[in-house]
């Protein structure tokens, strides 16, 4: 078992999935299906009529003005928010109130938050091994070996015994990525993973995400790092006022936006 192989081994890609990933995007199956999804907070409609299909291994960058429902949308994909109308299917599992479906979906989907949300009372290693031990019932030694491989992958194996408060923001966010990967999810959600970071730390987190995308992970990233989007995204989704306004490859979004609102917003932030 070569050490260099540990990186790949950390996120198992079963043979059938590997075969799928070898195909071009258009020929892969849809791992995330959203049809006419709505979400209200009281009377306020935060997400309206969003339909989107994401292919296995695809990277979708979601962007748009503040309050446009980006976070609400991706939080519905692992049911941190409940959708109230429409249909969401994750890797063939229908999102319903059934607890078994919910457990299965949470196992498929990992999430990284803007504020890291590491558990401050346990060490970095404990943060990463907690869910594998408690949810996947891995033996402690296996969970720790997995955690160390993931920490190596995000470049901070030497921080394993520290507490989150002793790490820089960039390091904390990389731990959060490792923590989510330890559940070996099929899909990763990122909600503005670099917005709380100082500029010099943004790159280290984006590098970890780039590397993850290269392994064929399906990713939905809310981010305004347009350089990252241009380079890594397969498609980009522009949200405004709760609606999915435009969805297309970066080339189209940057060079030839089909909607005026997309163009207007990009002009403001670029």
């Amino acid at each position, binding site marked *: 078992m070569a050490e260099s192989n540990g990186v790949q081994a950390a996120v198992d890609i079963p043979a059938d999935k590997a075969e799928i990933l070898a195909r071009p995007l258009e020929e892969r199956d849809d791992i995330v299906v959203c049809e006419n999804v709505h979400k209200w907070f009281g009377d306020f409609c935060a997400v309206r009529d969003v339909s989107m299909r994401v292919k296995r291994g695809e990277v979708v960058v979601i962007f748009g003005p503040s309050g446009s429902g980006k976070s609400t949308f991706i939080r519905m994909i692992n049911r941190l928010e409940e959708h109230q109308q429409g249909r969401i299917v994750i890797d063939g599992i229908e999102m319903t109130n059934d607890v078994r479906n919910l457990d299965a979906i949470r196992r498929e989907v990992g999430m990284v938050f803007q504020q890291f*949300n590491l558990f401050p009372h346990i060490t970095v290693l404990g943060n990463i091994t907690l869910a594998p031990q*408690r949810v996947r019932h891995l033996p402690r030694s296996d969970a720790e070996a997995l955690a160390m491989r993931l920490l190596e992958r995000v470049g901070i194996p030497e921080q394993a*015994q520290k507490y989150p408060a002793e790490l820089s923001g960039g390091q904390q966010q990389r731990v959060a990525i490792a923590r989510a990967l330890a559940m070996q999810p099929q899909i990763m959600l990122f909600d503005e993973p670099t917005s709380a970071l100082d500029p010099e730390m943004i790159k280290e987190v984006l590098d970890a995400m780039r590397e993850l995308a290269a392994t064929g992970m399906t990713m939905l990233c809310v981010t305004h790092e347009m350089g990252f989007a241009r380079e890594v995204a397969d498609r980009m989704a522009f949200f405004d006022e709760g609606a999915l306004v435009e969805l297309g490859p970066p080339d189209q979004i940057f060079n030839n936006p089909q909607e005026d609102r997309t163009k207007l917003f990009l002009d403001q932030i670029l």
Partner: protein
Amino acid sequence: MTARAAPAPLPPATTVGLQGWLRQNLFGSWGNSVVTVVVAVVLAWFLVNLGSWVLVEADWTVIISRAPLYIVGLYPYEGYWRLCVCLLLISVLLGMSWRAWPGPARRFAFAFGAVMLFVGVFPHEMAPEHRALLLLNLPFIGLGYVLTPRPAEAHSGRLEAMAGGALPPALERVAIFSTPRRMVIAAFVALVLIMILILGIAGVPGLDPVNPQDLGGLMINLLLAFFGIVCSLPIGIGLALGRRSSLPILKVACVIFIEVIRGVPLITLLFMSRHILPLTFPEELNIDRVYLAGITITIFSSAYMAENVRGGMAAVQTGQTEAAQALGLRGWQTTLLITLPQGLRNIIPAIVGQFISLFKDTSLVYFIGMLDLVEMGRVSVQGNQEFIDNGREVYLFIALVFWVFCFSMSFISRRIEGALGVGRR
């Protein structure tokens, strides 16, 4: 030759030093100066009077001659050595905490050792074996220290030089309190031993049972407060979790319990426990009033503890539960592994505060006929022609004892707050 930077300008003399401080804080304006002078005069008058009474007029023989009453009540003299052994056990625990958690615990261990040293060498009537046992506390603190390895963090290779520093390898090997779990077990075993030593066991030579009603003095205040807090912690956690639960009946039951207990003064509860509860229990079930008081104080304290715990858990950021959910943890796992531990960490200072107020409240047990420190003070004055005029000395002494305990505990609590970085994420 490097060019020297021009020296930084000095601040104006009126803002620095003693003079500057006085000027800024006490004599900043006319009004301020007047207040300063008036307060200073009143304070000086008070202190001079009190000081001359304390040093000249007061007769402190009552304190010295009745010291055992104040400290242990009517506890039988033959059993004093058992109490001394309890102190030794406490010393070991203190040494252990000092090593494991140097910031907050070191001063406490120092203070405890200093008190033991003082009492051990103070020239008054005391059996030499008791003196010896008291002085043994100093080496026992060292023993607890040695039996504990370097702070847990040091094992990870960082902060190697921190705090206690390294011990010689031979000593590291005897370090038996090597994990938090072992420390908790050690503390638990020590507490059980302390209870056995204090109360005795029938049939074991040397450990003759002591009538619980003979427990008294400062000891009973401390015991009631300590066991009240320790036992109310799990009950309070249970109540707090019940109050947060989504089962309506459980929730309502917990809310009613908490609010009823919090709405009734402790003294009423004590009175009810002594005079009303026995009416509803079968005759044979004759619980000693000491235990009744202990149970009542625990119940009283657990209602407040529940509210503390609830507050501590509510202060945990929602991001924490979201992250746990996103990882697939179940609701109860999230509560037990994430919210509760962080919530408890948040309220450690509040628990110390509650201990302080409970400690003061235990003086109410004289209402149900127990011989706590305050009651022993009253008895020693009123029950004795010789000391009938010494009430002032006695109550001043008692006030001082309570104050020293409460002040040192709140001092430690602040240290703990600092060490925990409360408010830090």
